[in-house]
């Protein structure tokens, strides 16, 4: 089993961290894993994206030309990556910033990730909202593992930030749960 995930958004939306959390969690679940970032001009501007592969066997290219699933946080990223999702793939789209999602045969989930983060008081936590929603949607990693990683990712002297991230993660779970999924309560 190999899962190829593309996570894309604007610089500053935290797509790199989102990908790292997924990768780290998968590693802790004893998988082979790669994480590959792509930046704009040297560092800034434009879209940022990262590619995460989770597999039971050794991974060749960390580069993904056709993804099993995607997290799309803004419109330019949608336009850039919409052709790279498998037909039966799963796509989580940030409906706060991507209005239309035309011509996609994958299973699209459109959720207002940024709005949700905004409401929680930290627009930068949209990535954690996305994380919660994404693992609820796909079940690729256990939310318990994800939560552990989220905690370890922030230095313990910033308990406020950890709290915010966890809240955002849970909000993502419940957003995703609303129509079809449920967020594991023991997460």
């Amino acid at each position, binding site marked *: 089993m190999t899962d190829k995930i593309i996570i894309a*958004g604007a610089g500053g*939306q935290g797509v790199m961290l989102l990908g790292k959390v997924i990768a780290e969690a998968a590693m802790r679940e004893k998988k082979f894993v790669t994480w590959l970032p792509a930046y704009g001009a040297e560092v800034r501007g434009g879209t940022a994206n990262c590619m995460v592969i989770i597999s039971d066997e050794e991974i060749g290219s960390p580069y993904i030309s056709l993804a099993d699933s995607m997290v799309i*946080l*803004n*419109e*330019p990223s949608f336009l850039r990556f919409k052709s790279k999702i498998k037909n039966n793939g799963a796509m989580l789209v940030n409906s*706060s*910033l991507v209005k239309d999602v035309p011509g996609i045969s994958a299973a699209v989930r459109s959720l207002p990730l*940024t709005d949700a983060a905004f409401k929680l008081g930290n627009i930068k936590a949209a990535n954690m909202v996305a994380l919660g929603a994404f693992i609820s949607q796909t079940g690729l990693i256990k939310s318990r593992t994800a939560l552990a990683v989220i905690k370890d990712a922030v230095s313990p002297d910033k308990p406020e930030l950890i709290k915010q991230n966890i809240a955002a993660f849970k909000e993502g779970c419940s957003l995703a749960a609303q129509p079809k999924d449920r967020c594991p309560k023991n997460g």
Partner: protein
Amino acid sequence: MAKITIDQEKCKGCFLCVGVCPKGLIKAEKALNKKGINPVKFEGKEECAGCCLCAVICPDCCIEVYK
């Protein structure tokens, strides 16, 4: 007597204009633009002095001033 226009799609929401307007006529917009950030909007009517301070500091050349 004066007014400004703001190109909200080019606006990056740095809020530098907000800080320099002596009359506080520029405010954050609630809605996000396509870049995914909150741009600013002009809320002055008559009060705008056409002083151009907002336009001068805007790094993204979003503001034009009319008098």
